[in-house]
């Protein structure tokens, strides 16, 4: 059919932006040409460029070579880019954990009054977020057993770094050693070194046995120089520490602080840090409220009352307003950088407040029984999976004679690298641990895939 009238055409179709009024410039600047003209007239300037008091030699009139796109275009491009992440089911852990995040977390935390607000410098119009943070502190206080908790650190690693400098500030002794277990993740240790470098502290390792503290070895490693001993439960290898009480006893009469690393879910079930004598509790609070987010988290920081004025980061306190009603406000701000500057307890300013909101929602959604039940499940799931794996020829699991939380190490007859790689090809990601071991993490988030996973392990090991 020939078309005379309707002109079917292959001529290029003009690019349209999906926000037409932003024909050039930013779609997020509300000014139309009339606005600009009136504003320039009001300030008696002919051209916006005149407002820039930049000497010519440092003026930039080049192009970044970044071409703006429609919202649809950006979404499509980034979705395609992210699709290049392999579609594997993760059995990965080692400090970063996936739990099922209920829908209320997104729904409530994305309310714009929360997410588009900033630090609560004007408490009278920020009572909502202040109460959220006060409640977060309270949740952390209950779960850690500590007296005080702050609003958040960046992640578990930086929280540990802050604990070390706190130890340096509160322990007047000459000591300068931070004693850490040999299972400490290299990444956390690397951060710790950068946080303590300025204070002239040094990091020393103590050996562990069967994935746990060996109290004798710890005592041997201790000397007057040690400011802080760090221990984890569960450890990055998934082992539930059985000697926390012993560590507490060893450190009880010393100037050395006992810093425990854990997470909010594990703490709902495992030994109360206060009971075993911990002075500071750090860790990852983002196991609740965040999915695995390529390592983005929220650092947990709680400690005993006596260190209160040396705590890093923001604190929210209860207060009263002019009518005598209960209100909340940022408090003890004289610890902080915007007031104390170089004598602040930390340089932290922006923190992870919005993640704290998410964590609080998730923890409250679960409630005390839900938290404990889920934590209990996180002890049963790895035990069962380890038993199943142990029956696979060539696999011995768990490698540690211990109770586990979420994850465990399994020994492999053969080349662990090849096994890990082969499993990845079959759609499952696990950690490689050295040449002959893997580490496997299971929670309610990937529980439904356990049978498929086992099937693939059997085939790979066959």
């Amino acid at each position, binding site marked *: 059919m020939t078309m005379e009238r309707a002109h079917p055409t292959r001529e290029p179709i003009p690019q349209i932006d999906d926000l037409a009024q932003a024909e*050039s*410039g*930013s779609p997020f*600047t509300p000014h139309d040409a009339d*606005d600009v003209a*009136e*504003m320039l007239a009001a300030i008696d300037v002919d051209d916006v460029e005149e*407002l820039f008091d930049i000497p010519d030699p440092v003026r930039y009139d080049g192009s970044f070579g*970044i071409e*703006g796109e429609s919202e649809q275009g950006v*979404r499509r491009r980034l*979705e395609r*880019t992210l699709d290049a992440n392999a579609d594997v089911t*993760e059995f990965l852990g080692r400090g*970063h954990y996936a739990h099922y995040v209920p829908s209320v977390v*997104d729904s*409530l935390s994305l309310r714009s*009054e929360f*997410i588009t607000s900033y630090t*609560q*410098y004007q*408490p*009278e*119009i920020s009572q*909502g977020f202040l109460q959220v943070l*006060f409640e977060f502190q309270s*949740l952390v206080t*209950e*779960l850690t057993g500590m007296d005080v908790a702050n609003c958040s650190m960046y*992640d578990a*690693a*930086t929280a540990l770094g802050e604990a070390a400098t706190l130890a340096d500030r509160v322990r007047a002794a000459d000591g300068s050693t931070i004693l850490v277990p040999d299972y400490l*993740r290299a990444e956390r240790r*690397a951060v710790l070194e950068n946080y303590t470098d300025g204070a002239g502290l040094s990091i020393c390792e103590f050996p562990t046995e069967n994935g746990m503290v060996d109290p004798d070895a710890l005592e041997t490693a201790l000397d007057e120089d040690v400011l802080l001993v760090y221990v984890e439960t569960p450890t990055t290898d998934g082992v539930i520490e059985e000697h926390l009480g012993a560590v507490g006893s060893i450190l009880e009469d010393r100037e050395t602080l006992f810093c425990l690393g854990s997470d909010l879910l594990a703490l*709902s*079930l495992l*030994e109360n840090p206060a009971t075993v004598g911990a002075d500071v509790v750090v860790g990852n609070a983002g196991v609740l409220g965040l999915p695995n987010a*390529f*390592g*983005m988290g929220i650092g947990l920081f709680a400690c005993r009352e006596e260190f209160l004025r040396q705590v890093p980061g923001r604190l929210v306190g*209860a*207060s009263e307003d002019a009518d005598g009603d209960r209100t909340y406000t940022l*408090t003890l701000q004289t610890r902080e*950088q915007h*007031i104390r*500057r*170089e004598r602040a307890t930390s340089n932290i*300013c*922006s*923190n*992870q407040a919005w*993640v704290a*909101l998410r964590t609080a929602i998730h923890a*409250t959604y679960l*409630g005390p029984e839900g938290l*404990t039940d889920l934590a*209990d499940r996180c*002890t049963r799931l790895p035990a069962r999976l380890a038993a199943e794996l142990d029956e696979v020829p060539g696999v011995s699991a768990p490698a540690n004679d211990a109770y586990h939380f979420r994850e465990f190490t399994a020994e492999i007859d053969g080349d662990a690298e090849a096994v890990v*790689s082969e499993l*990845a090809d079959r759609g499952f990601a696990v950690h490689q641990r050295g040449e002959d071991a893997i580490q496997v993490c299971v929670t309610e988030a990937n529980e439904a895939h356990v049978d498929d996973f086992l099937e693939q392990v059997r085939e790979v090991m066959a």
Partner: protein
Amino acid sequence: GHEPLLSEKDSTRHEPEDTYLPDDLTRDGIELPSLSEPELVRHYTRLSQMNYGIDDGPYPLGSCTMKYNPKFTEDIAGSTAAAIHPDRDPELSQGALQVYHELQDYLSRIGGMDAVTLQPPAGAAGELTGILIAKAYHEHNGEGDEREEILVPASAHGTNFASAAMAGYDIVELPADDDGRVDLDALTEAVGETTAALMLTNPNTLGLFERDIEEIADIVHDAGGLLYYDGANLNALLGRARPGDMGFDVMHFNVHKTFATPHGGGGPGAGPIGVREGLEQFLPTPQVRTDGDEYTLVEPDESIGKVHGSMGNWLVLLKAHAYISRLGDDGLTDTSAKAVLNANYLAERIDLEVPFEPFHHEFVASAGETDAADFAKAMLDNGVHPPTTKWPEIVDEALMTEPTEAESKRSLEQLAAAFNAVSDEDADTIADAPQTTAAKRIDQTTAARDPTLSWQQLSE
């Protein structure tokens, strides 16, 4: 207005039974609120309604760049393809690594830098990272011990002082000249063989461009020091000047300021670092590199190590990428134009004195005889968020005001009306403000005297 605490709605003690673990490995129990989903939802919904965000109205906190946060970036960050574990083999996270690499590249171009790391999870973390890189550089040159001082202008952000101190440096504070900029004589005096670096914000916290930046760079470089750029005010310069071209060696970006990622009630942000050629080898590990086909993780030769447990605040970085991609060159350049136009228009419209100019994206007005903090409280009754108060101290009763490019002319006029209304109010009205907010004036000093930091302490 008052919403009961979660703990006042319910407090349930739960003691675990029939646990898989033996009793000696478990605690006695926990006592926490146990609320149904409908109650939970109402609790947080009501709390949100007691909070002011950008979507509610103007939020002109100086130096904080509270601009509109585009909604579509949340949809991208919320996609399941973004929810991945950091320990994936790089082969399994090529998509995320490509995003990192592209954002590194974007930021390099925007800052005029040669290499970028995205690892620092906040602006202050970026500062610490940058200073640690300067330190590594001097140590590499065998001058680590001598160069023990960091120069910081008096009007700089508090984080500059704190970050330098965390890295182990002594701070030398630089006074401003009469025009509000770095005093070159004082700088020349202060700089020397003990100087590790000068940290500078440009435009500075008064909104003034440091016109002598080339000379400043020469002075610092001639003395063997490095020049550090605090990116808090980069929004003013997008597309018009680049720190790299001004002679800065190291800089940080605040993506939650310049690149519109939400402030989230105080965070998370992200504070990527850019460095000039010759400093790449000190960057944190890992760096994302590509041969054009595959993205890999590389440890720089003399890396300072790590400043975050993994790859930084990934979801925040992803939103920043989306924002920059949406705007492109034209959008970025328009951003600084409108940010500066808005600040100048707003300043013109208000009845207060602005002692220092020509300012760019922000200005510091003086509340005059009125306490700036009181002035701010009275602004709350006019339905807007007030500016940053009492800082920088170079201006009496400072009201540090940054409207950002995202405010419309109408909105600026609303904001100006709020300033002017308070200017006309009598002292008593101002002292009694705010009256229309969910909470009346809160005395922060008293709160700090006997801190109550949890519902447990509240019920003691």
